[in-house]
C-alpha cells in the first residue's frame, strides 16, 4: 500500500481504488489536543479541495480538505466518541474516512513520504 501526502497535512493510504484519509502527526501536533471531530456523511461526493471534515482543539476549528475527488464510503465513528485518538495515533487508528478514488490522475499531484518530510522540515 502506498501512502501519499498533501501540503495541507493530510495523508492518503491507497488500496486499489479506495483511499483512506487522515491527518498527519505533524498536523495533530500543530493543532494541539483535539476535542471534537466532525466527519462527512457516507455517500457524499467530495470534490478535491473542498472542506470534508473538521477538527477542533480547545483553541480553534480547522478544516480537513478532500485531498482528491470521490465518494465517501466509510467514516471512523470512533473519533466522535474519542477525538483524542487523533493526538494518540494520527497516522493509524485515527483515520477520518475512506473514499472511492474518482480520478487516479489526481494522485499525481500528491507527495510521497520523503517529499512530505521535506515539506514539513
Amino acid at each position: 500500500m502506498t501512502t501519499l501526502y498533501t501540503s495541507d497535512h493530510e495523508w492518503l493510504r491507497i488500496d486499489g481504488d479506495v483511499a483512506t484519509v487522515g491527518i498527519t502527526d505533524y498536523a495533530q501536533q500543530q493543532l494541539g489536543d483535539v476535542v471534537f471531530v466532525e466527519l462527512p456523511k457516507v455517500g457524499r461526493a467530495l470534490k478535491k479541495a473542498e472542506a470534508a471534515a473538521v477538527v477542533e482543539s480547545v483553541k480553534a476549528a480547522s478544516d480537513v480538505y478532500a485531498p482528491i475527488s470521490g465518494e465517501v464510503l466509510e467514516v471512523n465513528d470512533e473519533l466522535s466518541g474519542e477525538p483524542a485518538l487523533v493526538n494518540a495515533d494520527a497516522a493509524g487508528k485515527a483515520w477520518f474516512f475512506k473514499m472511492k478514488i474518482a480520478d487516479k490522475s489526481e494522485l499525481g499531484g500528491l507527495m510521497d513520504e520523503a517529499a512530505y518530510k521535506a515539506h514539513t522540515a
Partner: protein
Amino acid sequence: MLAREDLTPLKRTPLHGLHLALGAKMVPFAGYEMPVQYAPGVLREHLHTRKLAGLFDVSHMGQIALRPKSGTIEDAAKALERLVPQDILGLAPGRQRYAQFTNEDGGILDDLMVANFDDYLFVVVNAACKAQDEAHLRAHLSDDCIIESLTGRALVALQGPEAERVLAKFCPDVASMRFMDAGPRRVDGIDCFVSRSGYTGEDGFEISVPAESAERLATALLTDSEALPIGLGARDSLRLEAGLCLYGHDIDTTTTPVEAALEWSIQKSRRTGGARPGGFFGENKILAQLASGAPRRRVGLKPEGRAPVREGAPLFVDAASSEQIGTVTSGGFGPSLNAPMAMGYVPTALSALGTRVFAEVRGQRLPLQVASMPFVQNTYKR
C-alpha cells in the same frame, strides 16, 4: 491563525526571554508578542491551573496610578466616578473592585480593576485599550489627578489552589489576604503590588513587579514544582469557564453593563435613589436599564451536542427561522467542564435558564441551552 493587520513591530514584555527559554509558542496579541502556550499545550495547562498553580504573564495590560492633586484619595475617587458607574468613594483602602469605563451611549469603552492604595488609586486596564484609556483619563481627570502610566512594571498572575502556598514562600503576608484585597507588598525582597484576584475563577494573585525584577520573581515562583507557566490559550478557556467577559468580544462600545449582565458590579450608591446616583457617561441609559431591564442580555450557552460553537456564530430561535436573534461572543471547549461552552447575547425574553436557542455552525443549526455561569464553580477565598 491570527492575521497581522499592520506592520508595527511587536512589543515584548520583560518576561520575553523567559518565555523563549521555557519553550513558549509566541503569537501576536494586542500589539505584543505573547506566549499562547508552552509544551504541555492548552488542555493540560488549563487543567494544571485548576488542580495546582499556573503562572501567567499579563504584562501587556496597562497599569496606571491616579494620584489626587489635593493629596486626598477621596478626590481621586470622586473624579474616577465620573468615568465609571461603580462606587469608588466607598472602596476601602487595600481593596480592589471591578469597573467599566462607559461612553455617552452607555456602551463600554473598557473594563478595568481599580484598587485603593491609600494615597492613590491603582488601575489595571486591557492591553488593546490602554492608550485610549490613558487619553480618556487625561481628558477628564487631569484637573484632579496626576495620571501616571506605570510602564516600568510587569504584571504576572499566579492562579490555582496552590497559588497561596507558592506565593507565601516569598511573601508570608499573602496568606491573610482575602479575595479582592490589594496593596503594596514585598515579595522575595522586591517592592510589588499584590492583589488576591485574577481571571480564571480560581483563587490566586496578580503581582505587579518592577520590570527589572520580573524575570527573577517569575523564575523564583516557577522553582516550585507545582507551578507551571501558562499561556494565553488556557487563560481564555479558564476565563470562559469562569463566565468572565473578554473586552472586544463579550463587551464593547455597543453593549451596556446591564446588557452584559454586569449589574452586580454597579453598587447601590450609584443607582437611582443611591447616595451619588448617575454622574457617569451614559447615566440615562444605564440607570433606566438598571430600573427596567435591557432589550437583550449576555447569557451562558451550553451546546447540547459535543461540537464547540465559537465566536461569531449567529443565534436563531429555532432550527428553521431566518431571523437572527443574537450572536455568540465567546465559545469553545471547556477542559474542566469536559464539554463545549459559549456566551452570547439573546433577547431578554429568551434569556431564562433552560431556554433553547440554535446556533448556525457550518450550515447546520445546533441546539444550545441558556445556562448559568460560571460554567465551573469559582474557588475565590472570600
